[in-house]
């Protein structure tokens, strides 16, 4: 319990630091939202209008400390105010339209590539030197070294445009209304195949190789030889004895990756017109939309910290050695 409490304190400190950075960093960018807007509109504002817009956007010349305290107060209440790039829509409204799709895409790709990569890693390590072992790691390494943007565009062009196997954009068919019907769910799945597939293709190699190397180390342990000597079935040795121990580093990595779901899919979402958060993140930065930017970056950092916390807690259960550190 003491262990948990001490950790919580550290995490709170980390959140405060990230909140502060989140406040400072956007304000160090050159320019401000109103001049960014004027640029996009190619001028055409009178000075009085510019002044009025600044006011409407909530820019005051109040001391930074005051602004900072106000920001902290609002952040604690989860109130990020009105977006600037989508003024006067609430930041929370924008995030709620896009969050679901980002989470769906992120969770599916992460789970599939983790499970697939780990299992393949186990099998490949078990039969190291075999055909699979010589083909799979190098193949996935090769694919994984492609720039993602290129691979995604290629997939979009070949399977979407030329062959017309999969839809080229969006998260579900434009002709459907969202609802719990089989038709809608089917449409969501079909629309997920290309965006998720390309990410899995790129990322599965990492899991596979990580798993393979720890498996090989674990397989050299005495208790594995012992288990084999006792005449246990191969699958039992492979999964219950070797994999269970070898999976720990991959598991840590998995926890970390959960945190990255929110911010890590910008390219996927842009290439496949997937209605997620990535596009807003980019737009918030280019439009100097501080409120939206702050909310998004904060969500990402909190998600990463939360994922870490959960992994930390689980570690205590999985690996008794941690408790003593």
């Amino acid at each position, binding site marked *: 319990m003491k262990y948990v409490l001490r950790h919580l304190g550290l995490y709170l400190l980390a959140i405060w630091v*990230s909140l502060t950075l989140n406040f400072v960093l956007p304000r160090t960018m050159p320019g401000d939202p109103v001049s960014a807007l004027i*640029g996009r509109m190619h001028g055409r504002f009178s000075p009085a209008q510019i002044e*009025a817009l600044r006011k409407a956007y909530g820019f005051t010349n109040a001391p930074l400390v005051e602004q900072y305290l106000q920001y902290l107060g609002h952040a604690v209440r989860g109130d990020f105010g009105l977006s600037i790039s989508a003024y006067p829509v609430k930041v929370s409204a924008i995030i709620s339209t896009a969050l679901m799709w980002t989470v769906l895409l992120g969770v599916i790709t992460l789970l599939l590539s983790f499970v697939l990569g780990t299992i393949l890693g186990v099998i490949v390590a078990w039969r190291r030197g075999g055909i699979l072992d010589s083909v799979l790691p190098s193949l996935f390494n090769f694919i994984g070294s492609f720039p993602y943007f290129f691979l995604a*565009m290629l997939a979009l062009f070949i399977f979407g445009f030329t062959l017309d196997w999969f839809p080229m*954009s969006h998260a579900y068919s434009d002709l459907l209304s969202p609802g719990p019907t089989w038709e809608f769910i089917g449409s969501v799945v079909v629309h997920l195949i290309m965006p998720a597939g390309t990410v899995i293709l790129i990322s599965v190699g990492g899991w596979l190789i990580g798993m393979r190397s720890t498996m090989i180390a674990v397989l050299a342990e005495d208790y594995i030889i012992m288990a084999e000597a006792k005449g246990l079935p191969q699958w039992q040795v492979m999964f219950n004895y070797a994999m269970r121990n070898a999976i720990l580093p991959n598991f840590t990595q998995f926890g970390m990756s959960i945190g990255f779901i929110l911010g890590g899919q910008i390219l996927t979402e842009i290439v496949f017109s997937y*209605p997620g958060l990535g596009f807003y993140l980019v*737009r918030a930065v280019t439009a100097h939309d501080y409120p939206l930017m702050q909310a998004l*970056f904060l969500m990402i950092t909190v998600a990463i910290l939360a994922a870490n916390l959960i992994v930390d807690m689980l570690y205590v259960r999985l690996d008794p050695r941690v408790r003593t550190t």
Partner: protein
Amino acid sequence: MFRYKIYTAMAVLVLAALVLAACGGVSIPAATQGPAVTQAPAVTAVPNIATQAPAPSAAPTTDASKAFLTVNMEQQSTWVRNFNLFSPDSRLQAGNGVMYEPLMIFNKATGELVPWLATAYSWNADNTVLTFKLRQNVLWSDGQPFTAKDVIYTFDLLKAKPELLNNIGSILTDNVDGWSAPDDFTVEFKFKVIHTPALHLLANQLIVPEHIWKDIPDPATFTNENPVGTGPFTEVTKFQDQIYVVEKNPHYWQAGKPYFQGLRFPAYPGNDQANLALANGELDWAGNFVPDVEKTFVAKNPQDFHYYFLGGDGVLLYINPAVKPFDSADVRKAVSMGIDRKMVLNVAMFDYVPPLDATGLSDEFKIWKSAEAVAAGTWTNYDPKTANEMLDKAGLNKGADGIRIGPDGKPMKYALLSPNGWTDWNSACQIISQNMKDLGIEITLDTPEENSWQEQVFQGKFQWTLSWSSGGATPYEFYRGQMSKMTILPIGQNANENWGRFDDPKADQLLDEYGQTSDPAKQKDIMNQLQMIFVNDAPALPLFPGPDWYEYVTTRFTGFPTKENPYAPGPPYNTPSFAPNTLLVLTELKPK
């Protein structure tokens, strides 16, 4: 262990910060020419899409009058419901060019002021009163009658709340004394400072219903989810994150129009995705930059896939006259003659538009063009030999390394600015810097992030830069933005135009006279003289007009403006310089 992970988390944060700081790296190439609002005619590589036969359409068409037109007006990854036409940046485009209407529409293609909610306008003898006669029997989409009260209310609102987006802010405060309605269908504007170009701006203002808006506590933060307008399409019948549908106004005043049921707006985050949908035949009407349009779009279905790109507001090379020796018009003209505009157009613009001549006016102002000024403006012709002679004559002799020596005794080396990611401008700048080598001037291309570029240019702290120019119904705005003290701000303050802080007193006087008269013949004469002054002064060097992007598909609909019959501008989007021309097209389109 855990500490290590906290550090990792912090590292991630710092990484996020770096992304943020170096946001040029992740930013989507932003809007360059033409549609300044949300369109992004960005020149990024699209896979060559010329190899595929046309795919079947996805849009449902059963009964012709029930047909839906699929439009791409703007690029967004998901739609956020905001139809407030006064929102600065984020209102959905359908909010202005489809749901609401102005008194009169300035048709940029024909140069005419088309009667719309008003049937006529008139100036009094000394141009101090502008009167609009309103159309009777117009209903708002909720069935209430449209009257002069709504017009008065709209202008009152804009004056009281300058944060609401509009083009007429300074006119309402500086020029117009007041507006009133002598009867239900007449509106008068009284001027304290006569300014006849105000006509187009006042006439073009979209009108909102008083009976709805008077109850809105703060119109600036109103998202107007269920708009009430006089436009042809007002009923939002479906609104999802990736598509929305607007159906026709049950009370539309043009009997029998519109000829089809509604508009569908699918969301695409960028040009590449919108262009794929276009080439796939999923869209009926679009305004995107399409690279190599003949091959990637038209070739897929030459019968039904069409486009034409007209030149819009000009893109110019601005050389800061505060940097010597560029205070001399002859030196600026010499630089201009060293630029191979044909090559610039070919490399940067796919030859979609012709280069600008020395008047700086594109074809959209052809009725205004003075043949005499065009003929006198020889300095936009590519002639490096004469250019070198002119520079020699100006005493700028070449040093040992072939670079000319400036009046300050230093080699003529300058930075040419262009925003990061605006690839078409950047490649134009590359050609210019190569061209300048032949003149003995060394130009280095500098592509700062958009905001920082803008800061340097707007505050007058630049040497050379590419930039846009002001547009309007007449060339008045263009010339005022190039050479009038009205648009000069001190260095260090953000100026929307006249970045080189250039002023010609003769031009000022002419612009002033132009604003005083409503006589077309006199206006034409003044405009001829202004063109001549621009050609003599060369305050900035015209390069090419930013194209107005326009593609249309005639598989399902007919009646689009064509190259042969350009009855209205083609683009489906609205910018301040041609809002709301979409109304002219939407009321003519017919389902097949």
